């Protein structure tokens, strides 16, 4: 083939001309926000209520940019058992000037306290301001997107497959392991439970003292995992046991909680009977109520946390309650509901005193 002189030059000219006639790819950033993928790594959000100060994230962090301070707090067991110890988070800070956004802390967190948020606009004029304390890390939670849906033909989440097989006790742990639940199953059982649950508390109150003592002993020995043995008993019995302690707690700790419950959820009518209602049917719901102030808009993920955290929040009077509030108020969509479940479990685990409450939740779920 004969090479025509100047063909290469003409080609260059045509390329630039074509580019000029094409739309430019520039995004005018401050005016036009970038369309980031939902899972992009912008900033790390901390759900403070889920943190047990286990230090896994801080130890795994390749940059050593996570700072955790905590102390142990002794709580009297609500049912009169041995006092329980729990970790109280004093400080949780991530230095984003050091962070390399590897996400190891998030993957290693056993209790779903850390999440990726696609938010990225937190540049600072002073590098020291990139050290985000837990309050600031908590504010990112609102921006955490909901978990991705399962693929069309995917296996159903383990919570769903495992829960019906085993008695109430086992269901809880399985739920923890499997991160994503399908929304619907979770939701429906609860609603059902609330009406059903209410009646038992009255009759079962007698049973509670004995049961509770037994559960206490077991619970102290093995905090999280061991919950199952007591709960392993048929769901009804577990409910009975669980309900009484809760009932006592809500009454004692928060009169406020009950009114809020009534306002928030359908269950509220039960609220008329202070003692009986809160524990059994509403146990998950009331806990959520206290949370409202901090994060109304929070995403579904938070909602899930809230359900679990509510109870603890009431008892402890920690800030956690606030975060939990939003999900309930939102009456989250189906997607949100699966999340709740998952979060609830770790929560219930954490403070030994709360074990029973956690059990009650589980039992409700199972039933």
């Amino acid at each position: 083939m004969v090479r025509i002189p100047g063909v290469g030059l003409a080609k260059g000219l045509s390329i630039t001309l074509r580019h000029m006639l094409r739309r430019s790819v520039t995004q005018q950033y401050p005016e036009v926000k970038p369309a980031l993928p939902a899972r992009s790594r912008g900033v790390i959000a901390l759900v403070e209520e889920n943190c047990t100060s286990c230090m896994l994230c801080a130890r795994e962090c390749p940059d050593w940019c996570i700072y955790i301070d905590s102390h142990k707090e002794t709580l009297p067991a609500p049912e009169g058992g041995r006092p329980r110890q729990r970790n109280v988070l004093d400080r949780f800070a991530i230095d984003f000037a050091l962070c390399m956004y590897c996400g190891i802390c998030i993957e290693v967190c056993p209790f779903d306290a850390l999440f990726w948020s696609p938010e990225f606009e937190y540049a600072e004029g002073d590098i020291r301001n990139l050290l985000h304390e837990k309050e600031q890390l908590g504010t990112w939670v609102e921006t955490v997107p909901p978990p991705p849906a399962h693929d069309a033909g995917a296996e159903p989440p383990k919570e769903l497959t495992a829960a019906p097989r085993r008695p109430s006790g086992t269901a809880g742990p399985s739920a923890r392991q499997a991160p994503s639940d399908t929304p619907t199953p979770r939701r429906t059982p609860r609603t059902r439970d609330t009406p059903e649950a209410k009646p038992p508390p009255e009759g079962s109150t007698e049973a509670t003292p004995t049961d509770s003592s037994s559960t206490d002993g077991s619970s102290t020995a093995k905090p999280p995992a061991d919950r199952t043995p007591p709960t392993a008993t048929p769901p009804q019995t577990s409910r009975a046991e669980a309900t009484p302690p809760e009932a006592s707690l809500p009454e004692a700790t928060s009169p406020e909680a009950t009114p809020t419950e009534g306002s928030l959820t359908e269950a509220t009518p039960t609220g008329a009977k202070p003692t009986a209602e809160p524990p059994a049917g509403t146990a998950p719901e009331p806990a959520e109520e206290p949370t409202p102030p901090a994060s109304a808009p929070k995403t579904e993920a938070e909602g899930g946390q809230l359900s679990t955290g509510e109870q603890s929040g009431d008892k402890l009077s920690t800030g956690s309650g606030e975060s939990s509030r939003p999900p309930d108020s939102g009456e989250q969509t189906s997607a949100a509901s699966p999340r709740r479940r998952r979060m609830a479990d770790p929560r219930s685990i954490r403070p030994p005193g709360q074990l029973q409450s956690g059990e009650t939740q589980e039992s409700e779920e199972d039933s």
Partner: protein
Amino acid sequence: MLDVILRFAVILAVFLLLPLIIGQTEHKVMAHMQSRLGPMYAGGFHGWAQLIADGVKFAQKEDVIPAAADRRIFMIAPGVALVPYLVVLIVIPIDKNGFGVNLDLGLFFVLAVMGIGVLGSIMAGWASANKYSVLGGMRSAAQLMSYELPLVLAASSVAMAAGTLSLPGILDQWQWWWLPWQAIGGVVFFLAGLAELRRPPFDMPIAESEIIMGPMTEYTGMRFALFMLAEYAGIVVLSFLTTVLFLGGWHGPLLAGWIWTLIKVFLLAFLVIWMRVSFPRLREDQLQKLAWVGLVPLALVQLALTGVVKVLL
């Protein structure tokens, strides 16, 4: 007298305005050719005031003169680079009755004065007391030597065809078939002119990535702005000259003469920008080779062609 003053005022306005318009066009065209947007903020609408903002910025900057510099030459070099282009504009006919001054030796005058512009960068390069600047100045000088020859040969071909050195006279003689007849000379003239302006891809003397702007290395503030203005004024002048000599100036159907002139000038200016975006910088030896092995023979061929056709007619 009033007429002359008015004409000079208009020429001055054109001289100040057109380079800005072409500069802004370069910003935007170059950006879009690179799939960018270019300036978008200054002035509000697609950054139309970007060059004005640049000018304000330049005016605010400190005028640094290196201690070892040859002060006086250093200071007048930007003027030497800029003023010739203003002078050239005086004799360029924009419309049928011309504009500015009708010199009988117009073409000669234009070529002579344009050559002075290059002197500015040689002076700047020498006076800066900076080895990069000296390198740039030497390359400027070499480039001037090589490309002035094809430039003059190509222009003389037109003068031969028209039988006059007066620019309006050339345009009066111009016929449409001069376009193909003088095409080779037009290309040679345009390329050689680009090289004289040290525009990419012939920007070896400036070569910001290797000798950091060459002669302009030590310049700051307004003096640097004058160099930049000289570059764009050079584009304007080169486009005007190519239009007048090879594209028929104000000849054209329907529209008024001066509009045709401006259309052709802007098309050529676009071509200048287009070539800047598309082609990589020529190496120094390639630059010289292009002039001596490429353009000079081509210009001679054009000269011969012009002579043959002229004799046959």
